[in-house]
């Protein structure tokens, strides 16, 4: 996959482990910088630095709320990453759907009636 500079490419921006932690923390909703500092357990300047990179590629957006700045994820910027993984995910979904059929047969052989016998 061709890669651009970190500051222009969402792929590279989220390749950094701390930035992925920030993305994961924001997946549950918007957070202030202080909340992210607490959640990640790293110094505030470092969190701010990573947030700046994520903002530059559009992965997070910020809005002022009184004295604090709230960060949230921007799904549109993450979509290329989702699309990239999706075909791989589809393959595994296909495999597992077929495995369901195999498992239904194994259950029928083992339990005799093939019903939802989950013990």
């Amino acid at each position, binding site marked *: *996959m061709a890669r651009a500079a970190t500051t222009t490419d969402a792929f590279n921006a989220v*390749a950094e*482990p701390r930035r*992925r932690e920030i993305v*994961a923390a924001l*997946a549950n909703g918007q957070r202030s910088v202080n909340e992210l500092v607490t959640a990640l357990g790293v110094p505030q300047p470092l969190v701010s630095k990573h947030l700046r990179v994520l903002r530059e590629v559009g992965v997070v957006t910020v809005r002022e709320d009184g004295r604090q700045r709230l960060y949230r994820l921007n799904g549109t910027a993450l979509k290329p990453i989702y699309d*990239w*993984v999706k*075909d*791989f*995910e*589809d*393959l*595994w*979904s*296909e*495999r*597992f*759907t*077929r*495995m*369901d*059929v*195999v*498992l*239904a047969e*194994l*259950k029928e052989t*083992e339990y005799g009636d093939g019903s*939802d016998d*989950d*013990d």
Partner: protein
Amino acid sequence: MVQMTTTNSAVVTLPTATQILITREFDAPRHLVYRAYTTPDLIRRWWAGERGEVTSVEVDLRPGGVWRYVMVASAGFEVAFHGEYKEIIPNERIVATEVFEGMPDAAALTTATLADKDGRTVLSVLVEHSSQEHRDAHINSGMEGGMQESMNKLEQVALSLA
């Protein structure tokens, strides 16, 4: 981590720059999922998904034993993977190396874990590569989905030239 909202989809996440994590819940007890996952005649039935036919499955299920799966994709080309089992705990965990034969330098370490969950079984497959480039290539191969897409594009180009 992404929550599993349906049981029909595999959930793929990228926990670190060199890892891929594939997760799926099955409505079957652990020992049956293990059987489906490790028995050659059963692997033949699911491993190609909807993308072709499995033509060969070799499984020597013991530490140091080798495995090799081959499929012929719908577009006609052959895709083969092989590796060596490192650790086997029946019905619980399989650790093995994995090499895509089209990219032999990119060996991965794969850990498949089975866990009970409310009478069902959660299968997690963690794929660890030695570099981000290899990890990304693994996803790009999609696996042959990526190649299939390339083939389709090539075909379109060829048709436009005709």
